[in-house]
């Protein structure tokens, strides 16, 4: 499975900073659901902010919640903050729409980070504003 973080120690993020991993849709295309979830949660456990160009499917989101819950541990990991744009009224989520190939709502920029480091300030259909703090 490809690593999202840089393996070279000399490029490791400064301890004062917050590492942001922007992961392309292409990189996610060939990964299995659990590989995607593992990559996201490994990044978040390291204190990174993970940004997915194309997000996750609803089923993958459901499994991400389930796996996140199993890894929550008092004083160590409180879970994740995850943000995507809410669905627009104009998008077609009907069964017919999906059968006809209208999967616009399936790809959405997604931001995921440790719950204790990322706070959403504002969110609407076109804007997500978040505050990222050091641990």
């Amino acid at each position, binding site marked *: 499975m490809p690593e999202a973080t840089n393996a070279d120690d000399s490029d490791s993020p400064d301890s004062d900073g917050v590492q942001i991993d922007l992961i392309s849709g292409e990189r996610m295309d060939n990964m299995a659901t659990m590989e995607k979830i593992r990559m996201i949660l490994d990044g978040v456990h390291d204190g990174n902010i993970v940004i997915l160009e194309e997000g996750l499917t609803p089923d993958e989101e*459901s499994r991400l919640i389930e796996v996140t819950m199993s890894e929550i541990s008092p004083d160590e990991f409180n879970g994740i903050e995850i943000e995507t744009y809410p669905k627009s009224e104009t998008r077609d989520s009907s069964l017919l729409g999906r059968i006809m190939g209208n999967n616009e709502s399936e790809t959405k920029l997604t931001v995921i980070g440790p719950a204790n480091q990322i706070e959403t300030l504002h969110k609407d259909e076109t804007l997500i504003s978040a505050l990222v703090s050091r641990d």
Partner: protein
Amino acid sequence: MGLFTELKDSISRVTDRLFSEQEPKRIGIYGPPNAGKTTLANRIARDWTGDAIGTESHVPHETRRARRKENVEIERDGKTVTIDIVDTPGVTTKVDYEEFTDEMEEDDAIRRSREATEGVAEAMHWLREDVDGVVYVLDSAEDPITQVNTMLIGIIESRDLPVLIFANKIDLDDSSIKRIEDAFPQHKTIPLSAKEGDNMDEVYDSIAEYFG
């Protein structure tokens, strides 16, 4: 002859049950913590069976196990709709035990948070595998556009489950039904107060219409 008749009747009753009667649909009550899911489940169960389902509390994550009330028979317009109600733990992506330490000792708070995480995982499993329809409960005094609500409605839609949105707590001053209707215009929103029993006739009409 008597034995044969009895046997024939018995076989007939079993086959009738197997092939003619529809199994009650399992309706999952979902939503974020503290939306009033258990209060609603108890209201429905008490109205139609006389029994409650679970304990209600203002402290989040009081419900930490999915609980099913079987064969709830709701009568509307001379017809009876039979459903199983599944009251589920509030779904979230984070649980911090320190949220509970004002209300209880640290050990109890840690245990509550651990059980809460198991409950959320259980709720997600029920949603993927074991429910036939969803009542999505929101606190109408809170902003409905949260990531958990957006994700859960998306997950429910992706499974093509029939869903009703219940705008609960309309007895509160800050309640706004329009805010919920605007957030999820693709679904029918029904206002109610499960605690006060307000607008329950429309609640039961809608349940019978959608899940009957």
